[in-house]
């Protein structure tokens, strides 16, 4: 049996996993700002980016509250943690985001496909939180699910448009699918802190059932027998992670406490 304090530590790690994953994907998508293929889509992808960062803020605020209540039990030496200190002052190994979120943004095909793969997963995950015991997580999930539904609609239409588009767009979608697929296995391997998610096999099935018709319409075939990467949930990251954290954290680390 776990003690209450152990349970709380697991919950904190789980909330940080949700926060980190959304923050890093939000940061990656924000790299499109002023680089979008067309003005309207530049705004669309940065809107999604802001949705994700908004979700991460809700999770960070909750994590900070839990950590402060639990002061002393965390690895961090303070009891006045905030959403900002969690986002800006933790190190690579402390971040628990999924590996797929930290991969470079590459081209539009990679970006829209990654959004689809992740959003379909987060929709199933948030539905578990919505119906779970934790009132705070349930409230965050309820708000986020409306945003996620739009992200799925937007990204699935792009995947179909490019997959079933010109020779070049189809080719680029295929390259993106082959590059990103090895990072989808990690979605469904429960980390020790994911005690409230007990049915990852069902989540995986849901995910496949939602994804397959989209890929069929996009004339894309799912890669078979692929070696699946993992480690992000445990803080073991790709070589890209340090660079994105440097981008994200540079200002707060160079000018501690700087404000707008």
């Amino acid at each position, binding site marked *: 049996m776990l003690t209450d304090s152990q349970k709380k530590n697991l919950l904190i790690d789980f909330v940080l996993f949700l926060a980190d994953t959304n923050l890093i994907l939000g940061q990656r998508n924000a790299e499109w700002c002023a*680089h979008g*293929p067309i003005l*309207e*889509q530049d*705004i*669309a992808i940065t809107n999604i980016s802001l949705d994700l960062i908004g979700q991460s803020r809700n999770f960070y605020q909750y994590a900070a509250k839990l950590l402060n209540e639990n002061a002393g039990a965390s690895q961090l030496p303070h009891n006045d943690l905030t959403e900002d200190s969690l986002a800006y002052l933790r190190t690579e190994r402390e971040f628990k985001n999924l590996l797929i979120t930290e991969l470079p943004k590459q081209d539009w095909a990679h970006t829209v496909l990654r959004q689809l793969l992740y959003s379909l997963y987060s929709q199933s995950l948030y539905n578990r939180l919505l119906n779970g015991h934790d009132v705070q997580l349930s409230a965050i999930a309820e708000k986020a699910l409306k945003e996620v539904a739009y992200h799925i*609609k*937007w990204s699935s*239409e792009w995947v179909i448009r490019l997959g079933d588009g010109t020779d070049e767009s189809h080719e680029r979608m295929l390259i993106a699918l082959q590059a990103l697929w090895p990072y989808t296995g990690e979605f469904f391997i429960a980390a020790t802190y994911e005690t409230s998610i007990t049915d990852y096999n069902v989540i995986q099935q849901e995910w496949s059932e939602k994804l397959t018709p989209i890929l069929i319409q996009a004339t894309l075939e799912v890669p078979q027998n692929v070696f699946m990467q993992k480690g992000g949930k445990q803080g073991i990251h790709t070589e890209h992670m340090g660079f994105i954290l440097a981008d994200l954290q540079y200002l707060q680390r160079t000018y501690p406490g700087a404000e707008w």
Partner: protein
Amino acid sequence: MKTFIGKQLYGDFGEQEPGGEIAKEKKAMHDEDAWPLWEVFIRSKQGLDHKHAGSLKAADAQMAIENARDVYTRRQEGVSIWVVESKHIHATNPGESESLFEPAEDKIYRHPTFYDLPDEIKHM
């Protein structure tokens, strides 16, 4: 010999490529004719009319609605969106303004301002 001079701005190129193929690709994507123009109409709340909000580029009607959602309603400006491809809108010719609109100028009696309204009527 013709020299082509273009202004280049931050963000025109990817991080690695110094123009070349990428620059050509970007030009193709930004080609004026690549995606048609759409006019966007937004209803700000139930009961009000849709009002013209602006225009944007999109490949099809679905994308035009989504683009309009992202461009014109991100600050809660609307509850409903209409889009119509700009080419389907027919307009008056500015050259005919005189004959079309000026004859109304001296017909002020068409404004209902010559009646005494009872006080009980609030919204006129």
